[in-house]
């Protein structure tokens, strides 16, 4: 009798938990798609509100009114805005972002091409940031009332405060102009088939991007670790005779990593913005540089595609991180 009750209870809990998980994921996906559509509608509208006529940008300032009208009709700029948006969205959802009005280039292909610079840059920067931030953060937490802990913490504050572009300029001045160890910018024309020179080109930009990122992550790792250290279970672990670092290694690391991972997910947006600046400073032909160039020549169709893609990437990453956290930590999905 007792056993039966126990099994039933477990069963219902399991059902409940599965139901929760499915509900959680459905909710997340709805949120993901909803925000994506809203964001692209906003981007679409904003670009149309901005001064600057697409047809004029294409034909130049001497264009005759007839030529302008013809171009507008050709590119469907006469259609109602909502129709233009739905048309664009329909194609976009199928992975077709159209062609640039100015250059005639296939936008999806261009973005994919530039991603071969930007994704490795962001990946390398995140890896660098993680490798340094987590051990340092934990170390400074373990020593949070000692001088060395405070020093590390202060330095990380500095890392957050210094603007990315300035770090980039300093790195270039030292490593490219003075010692000529790394290129000051640019990316091999051959692309990743000459992977070693590609990596060389990415060292300084990735370091620049990683510094601010790493400093931020380090502070999160530190405060999360301090939280863990002050928990009852940590004290109990210490009471069994473990040293601070032993107790942290065995019982604390996983717990303190949860907030760090979720912060990393949120920071992907910051990283993309950072990549725009870093690509500009280092003349890297990536998505950020392309976006800046397109804005300057008013290639709105392409700007729209690029912004929508990066927005989708940000949403996708935070969605994935949420999903992973949800799987890891049952509490977080039950609460939502």
């Amino acid at each position, binding site marked *: 009798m007792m056993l039966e009750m126990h099994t039933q209870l477990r069963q219902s809990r399991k059902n409940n938990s599965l139901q929760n998980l499915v509900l959680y994921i459905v909710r997340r996906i709805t949120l993901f798609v909803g925000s994506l559509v809203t964001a692209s509608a906003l981007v679409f509208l904003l670009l149309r509100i901005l001064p600057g006529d697409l047809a004029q940008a*294409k034909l130049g300032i001497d264009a005759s009114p007839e030529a302008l009208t013809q171009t507008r009709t050709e590119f469907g700029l006469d259609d109602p805005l909502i129709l233009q948006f739905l048309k664009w969205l329909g194609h976009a959802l199928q992975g077709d972002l159209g062609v640039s009005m100015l250059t005639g280039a296939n936008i999806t292909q261009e973005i994919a091409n530039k991603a071969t610079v930007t994704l490795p840059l962001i990946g390398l920067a995140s890896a660098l940031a993680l490798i340094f931030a987590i051990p340092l953060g934990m170390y400074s937490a373990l020593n949070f009332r000692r001088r060395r802990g405070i020093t590390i913490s202060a330095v990380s504050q500095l890392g957050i405060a210094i603007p990315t572009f300035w770090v980039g300029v300093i790195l270039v001045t030292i490593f490219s102009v003075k010692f000529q160890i790394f290129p000051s910018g640019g990316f091999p024309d051959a692309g990743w088939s000459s992977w070693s020179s590609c990596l060389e080109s990415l060292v300084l930009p990735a370091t620049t991007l990683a510094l601010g990122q790493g400093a931020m992550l380090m502070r999160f790792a530190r405060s999360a670790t301090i939280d863990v250290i002050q928990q009852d279970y940590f004290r109990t672990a210490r009471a069994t005779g473990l040293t601070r670092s032993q107790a942290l290694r065995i019982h604390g690391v996983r717990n303190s990593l949860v907030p760090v991972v979720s912060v990393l997910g949120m920071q992907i947006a910051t990283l993309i913005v950072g990549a725009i600046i870093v690509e500009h400073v280092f003349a890297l032909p990536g998505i950020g540089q392309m976006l800046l160039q397109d804005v300057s020549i008013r290639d709105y169709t392409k700007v729209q595609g690029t912004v929508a893609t990066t927005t989708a990437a940000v949403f996708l990453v935070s969605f994935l991180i949420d999903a992973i956290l949800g799987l890891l930590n049952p509490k977080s999905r039950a609460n939502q």
Partner: protein
Amino acid sequence: MTKFVLKRISKISLVCASLLLATSEIASAATVGAKTNATITIGFTLEPVSLDITGAAGQAIPQVLLNNVYEGLLKVENSGKIVPSIAESYTVSTNGLVYTFKLAKTKFHDGANLTSADVVWSFNRVLDPKSTAVLPTQKQQFSTIASITAPNASTVVIELKDRDNDFLFNLTQRGGVIFKTGTTDFATKANGTGPFKFGNWNRGNSITLERNDSYRATKALAKTVIFRYILDATALSNAILSGQIDIMSTVQKPELLSVFKGRKDLKISSGTTNGEVTLGMNNSKAPLNNIKVRQAIRQALNKKALIKTAWAGYGLEIGSFVPPTDAWYEDLSDTFPYDVQAAKNLLKQAGYPNGFSITLDIPPAPYAEASQEFIVASLKKIGINVTIKPVAWGEWLDRIFTKANYDMTIVAHVERSDMSIYANPNYYFRYNSAEYQSLIKKAGSARTPVGQAESLKKAARLLSNESVSDWLWLIPNLQVVKKSITGFPQNDVGDAYSVAAIAKE
């Protein structure tokens, strides 16, 4: 009118951003001892949006393609001289309306022979009123063409409706490029006849040109030339400091040059442009309607010192409205030279012994902002109190350019052969001189370039003597170049950046 104004102002306001460097090769480059077969990398800021040289806007397209990949019947040398290109020679009829071109034996990069039919096809494509594939500016440049015919495979005859002294120059620019008959893809391919073949375009990064080893005339010296596009000015300057590029083709502000001084491997090249930084004066409004007052203002301004203060010492004193690459250029910088006492005397003679107060409108352009304080201080010395008023381009266009409601202003005029603006009494200078207008008219209808130059020389002298404006300096074409590089185009005389004579020692 609005369209005209817009066109002009956009060109004017482009000055600061685009000291753009369209240039042509140096005829007699010092290339003795230069190593051929080198790879030369040149840094630019703006990348082409497309390869369509007649159909897409932007100066970056002719910069990389004109005279390098594509050619016209004629080309303009870096000295400003117009010389044969695809046409090995030409004659002009006595009435100045019929031009007969004899074509050189020329091959397209795809191996096809160029004939007169290709020339006719290319011009008809530009002239076709129904086609929107060609930019309006290009169409307008050749609107004086009445007919174009090909009596045989190596002769082309172009007949004009009216005499047009700009016709030969226009033939050297992007609208005059000769394509192979029936070409359809202009945006992603470039099948030209020039000393370089189009190699490869890595969008967002670079365009590579490869030497055309079967070129009809002197072959290019470098084997490969890479046009590298770096949007950020600092990144561009870092690229030459760290040795990644051989030429930095644009220095947008002279103060950026300080980082290059003391570098033994680099040299700073200061060439000419068509950009005259002009201190515009309202000739219809007292006290500036008095010729003696305008002359006094010119004598009160020490141009040498001004160029040093405002433009780091780069830039040329011109003394009138003509750049040295024009055939009618004369050095007039000594007319009304710097002399404070003479300026004071002139003011006294004009009836202003105690001076007066006027306003100087400053648009948001670096050259204007950099010279304002100097002008205020200099004119104070002869008793003129100048109030500076910063104006946005929108207001400048409306109040100054259109309505001429101003005393003085500073703007660089960058168009080529633009002396005719002083012949328009409604232009914002409000200069109404029958003598000047007749000189410009005479130049326009001159039958020979020499006749045209004679009239324009007189006109330039008249402008200077009457001190219609003051011309502060000629904007320099600044580049930073590795010392080992020779034969690069120093002056900005047209749309092209010709690289055939560039070599590495």
